[in-house]
């Protein structure tokens, strides 16, 4: 692969202060520009810890994490790292700072010390991308769950990052909210954004280009979503997404052509979803 690496984790170990066992135990992972990677794994496997390592919120106790070539250990580079990779957490209520939608989106650019017209431009663009333009002057706390999560996304996008790290960001949404959130990610991906999506919902992994399984603080499997759903996910006792189950069932009964699971798009096409 000749694309630029965005994240390079080399033997990353991390133990929380006071914890008896490490949360990450020698994690090696390379993620390149423009990729959409789904990071899956059981609860407590270290996914959130990895996201914080990638944003320099935590510094590895062993090994190195490079973000666009910058070592997160170098304190002077931390502001640049935070600016180039934006993190969106699970609960939007934990990341909304201001009481008005556009004021909240502006929080990041304001911290960067940008001039007002530039902040305005970024706020407008991010609200547009997140589909919140009509709600710009609304109260952040009167939004629905899906809108709040898109607000958190807009706040991250306003930093104009090269990569987005999403830590189970769609998990609290209802099916409709999740769908609009995922379609928003789809268009970001097409515009060249690198997306690292942490999830334990398999149907969110279908849309990615690459699936990485994390188990006990290590990357234990790495491959395409097609290969992942073609047997691999069972080994990690994940539940099967309904679409895949349906496809597999139809395949087994000879109602669909082909013998193996194709990629997400052709699968969805075949099912007319």
């Amino acid at each position, binding site marked *: 692969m000749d694309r630029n690496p965005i994240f390079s984790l080399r033997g990353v170990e991390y133990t929380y202060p006071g914890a008896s066992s490490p949360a990450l135990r020698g994690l090696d992972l390379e993620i390149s520009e423009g990729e959409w990677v789904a990071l899956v794994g059981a609860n407590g496997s270290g996914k959130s810890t990895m996201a*914080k390592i990638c*944003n320099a*919120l935590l510094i590895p106790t062993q090994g190195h994490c490079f973000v666009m070539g910058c070592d997160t250990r170098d304190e002077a580079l931390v*502001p640049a790292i*935070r*600016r180039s990779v*934006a*993190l969106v*957490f699970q*609960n939007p*209520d*934990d*990341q*909304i*700072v*201001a*009481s*008005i939608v*556009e*004021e909240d989106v*502006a*929080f*990041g*650019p*304001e*911290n*960067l*010390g*940008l*001039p*007002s017209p530039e*902040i*305005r431009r970024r*706020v407008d663009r991010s609200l547009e991308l997140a589909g919140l333009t009509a709600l710009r*002057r*609304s*109260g952040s*706390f009167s939004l629905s769950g899906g809108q709040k999560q898109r607000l958190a996304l807009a*706040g*991250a996008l306003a*930093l104009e990052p090269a990569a987005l790290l999403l830590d189970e960001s769609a998990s609290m949404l209802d099916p409709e909210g999740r769908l609009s959130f995922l379609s928003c990610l789809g268009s970001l991906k097409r515009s060249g954004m690198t997306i690292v999506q942490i999830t334990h919902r398999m149907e969110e992994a279908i849309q990615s280009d690459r699936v990485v399984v994390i188990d006990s603080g290590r990357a234990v499997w790495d491959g395409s979503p097609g290969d992942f759903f073609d047997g691999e996910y069972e080994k990690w006792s994940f539940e099967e997404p309904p679409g895949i189950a349906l496809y597999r069932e139809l395949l087994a009964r000879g109602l669909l052509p082909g013998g193996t699971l194709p990629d997400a798009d052709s699968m969805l096409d075949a099912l007319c979803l």
Partner: protein
Amino acid sequence: MQFLSGISLGQFIPGESLLHRLDPRCKITATFILLSGLFMASKIPDFAFWGIFLLSLSAMSGIPLGIILRSARPVLFLVAFTAALNAFWTPGREVFRAGFLSVTIEGLVMAFEMGMRLVFLVMFASMLMMTTSPMAFSDGLERLLSPLAKVGFPASEMAVMMTIALRFIPTLFEETDRILKAQISRGADFESGGLLKRARSFIPVLIPLFILVFQRAENLAVAMESRCYVPGMPRTRLNPLVWTKNDTGAILGLLAFISAVILFDRFALKSFIIL
């Protein structure tokens, strides 16, 4: 059952009115002027002026009078208490006597004046909070306190802290409501028994609430850090504060109005004194 609905406590109500658009520095200064005026002129007839002023604030802000009146609800107990104290303890012409307690005309007047003063104080202060977003409010306060920053006062950090504290008010109510409901569904009883028993029954609500709020505050701090917030670093603003002619006009108009009320209080009232 919604326990805490209806408590407005001066939460920001987004809007585009003239009052909403005034510079927060103007609104903070004006509130101070207004409250000083209220303390200088609080005889019974003066409250007609304060009442009319409140009505016009309601009209100018588009905030219904009912919501403004309700903002005084949290202090009603305090008002009743001080009013009762004043009514019984002020010496003067007795109206009636109940045992060893005697109520005087002077006491009743004093009780009314003190009570109304407190109610208006809270309502005027709520008007400020209801028409100013927490972000704008803390920006304004930061700028007003910026002279103190030169002697080492952390005005900027304080502003961010204030934004967050204000931001947490809705969360606090939501969570309290949620915990109350959860406790009630498990058979907790908050509505019977004496004051002490009722106060005690709130302990199982307060402890999870504090744990939750600390957890949320911790999460928020991490999220802010990941959004490039560094305490003490200079920040810029989406909407830098701009002092306009409207702001100057508002302050001058308010000063004229307050002077008129104080003149009325000092001179006009004296000439046709009733009490």
